[in-house]
């Protein structure tokens, strides 16, 4: 890469990458930026400066209800996902199972199908079972789509661990439960935390599954925003909600980077 500095092609490459990265961040900057305008219509760059849209968002009861519903849903889905995913990850790493590859592929498969498909299938399923559309059905669907994230990060962290630590604990007289509680679990914490954060975000952001399973009484935040954006002239209130959400995401991303390393979230090692 030393020659990168001398080569005109390399200079063009750098400018090009800058342009693409700008393209990637512009809509997010715009969505957040409109929140600070004083104009009735959402526009960017904002005209004037005000925080009135934050106030409008924070006093709009349909957004507040949806936000609180989304939050409860995401917290409970995260807890359930970890409870279901962690034991499975431990067995998958510790034991050799027949058909292990196929089993893992199956357990991760909700990652790979379009959300709309699962949403509509779950709608028929809940209807066929006679449950109808309830909050618990929505929660179950969120657990299903989030569980692969917890499983994947936990598996990755556990596979990277030194087996010797657990063996040492056992040699020193710890029973399996003590080994798990005092050695394995603390070592798995970054993976669990990253997976849990992902599960939270997946649940909190989901539209394609939730849109089929929510009713006006238990609408989630993104579904409420969607119907707001499709049904009326959008004002900057949505911008304020976007700004709040992006702020939360940035904090979470920072925590994730500290605990787990953002580069490890992808197959592309950083």
């Amino acid at each position, binding site marked *: 890469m030393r020659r990168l500095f001398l080569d005109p092609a390399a200079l063009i490459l750098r400018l090009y990458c800058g342009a693409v990265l700008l393209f*990637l961040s512009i809509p997010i900057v715009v969505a957040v930026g409109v929140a600070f305008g004083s104009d009735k219509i959402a526009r960017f760059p904002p005209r004037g400066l005000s925080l009135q849209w934050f106030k409008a968002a924070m006093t709009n009861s349909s957004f507040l209800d949806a936000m609180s519903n989304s939050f409860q849903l995401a917290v409970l889905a995260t807890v359930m996902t970890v409870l279901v995913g962690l034991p499975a990850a431990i067995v998958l790493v510790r034991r050799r199972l027949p058909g292990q590859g196929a089993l893992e592929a199956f357990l991760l498969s909700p990652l790979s199908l379009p959300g709309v498909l699962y949403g509509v299938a779950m709608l028929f399923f809940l209807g066929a079972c006679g449950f109808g559309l309830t909050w618990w059905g929505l929660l179950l669907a969120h657990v299903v789509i989030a569980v692969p994230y917890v499983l994947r990060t936990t598996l990755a962290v556990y596979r990277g661990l030194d087996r010797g630590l657990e063996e040492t604990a056992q040699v020193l007289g710890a029973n399996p439960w003590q080994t798990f509680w005092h050695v394995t679990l603390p070592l798995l914490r970054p993976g669990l935390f990253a997976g849990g954060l992902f599960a939270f975000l997946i649940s909190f952001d989901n*539209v394609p599954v939730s849109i089929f399973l929510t009713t006006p009484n238990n609408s989630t935040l993104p579904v409420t925003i969607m119907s707001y954006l499709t049904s009326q002239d959008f004002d900057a209130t949505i911008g304020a909600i976007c700004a709040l959400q992006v702020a939360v995401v940035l904090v979470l991303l920072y925590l994730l980077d500290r605990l787990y390393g953002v580069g490890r979230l992808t197959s592309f090692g950083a």
Partner: protein
Amino acid sequence: MFFCLVPIVVLLVAFFVLPFGVMLYESLFLSPLQAPAGVSLTFANYVKLFGDFFYIKVLLQTLALGAVVTILSLIIAYPVAYMLARTRSRWRQLLVFLVISPLIVSIVIRSYGWMVLLGRAGTVNSMFVAIGLTDHPLPLMYNWFGVVIALTHVLLPYMILTLASVIEGIPESLEDTAAVLGAAWFTRFRLIVFPLSLEGVGSGVTLVFMLAIGSFVSVLLLGGSDTLILPLMIYQQVILINNNFAAALGMYLLVISVALLYVQRHAFTVRGAAA
């Protein structure tokens, strides 16, 4: 110890596999609205799907959108992936962060950003009018143009990360040797980097294509009445309480998605990007 696997397997069999079974079952009946006389097992929904030109057109539109978005993403992403894989600059962490962070911000938020940018009185149109490129606002959204832009934006990071992970594995010494032997950058790209990255290209292309033909939010928000693709049509049919036909459409998209998934798993050893 195997009892630890029971909860997750039960969860996925009961609430993931079974729902698709119900979908298959529902697709084999007509809705009460279509067949008031009574219900019986029938392939009528599928006959309609494959026989009516309207639905064939929707399928073709879905595949065409997938193809256009995939090709655009590949062309835009490749140089960025190369840069990301090869740079040793201290800004590398920041670059990775900038590529990954859009993935973590809600698609609804990103689509809203595009709506503000591309609307009739949006940022782009105001700029074009101000510099005299046009005297009346251009239709930039509620049509295919808006959908392609927003969808390419959503899927670009997946392509960049998949390509970067493969390019990173190509020894840089190969390029250095070629450079010493006098190969210019384009020759090095054409004869070394690109051929060796083909597996990543294949993996990224299937991943992005699959995500594009299953996309929902961007198409619903930035599309118009003519930008009908399969996921959107499934949603419309559910709203029209035409559930059985929606189920058939769902099976249709399911078969296409599973086939693509199979290609991705077996033809390319490199796994796609995360998230």
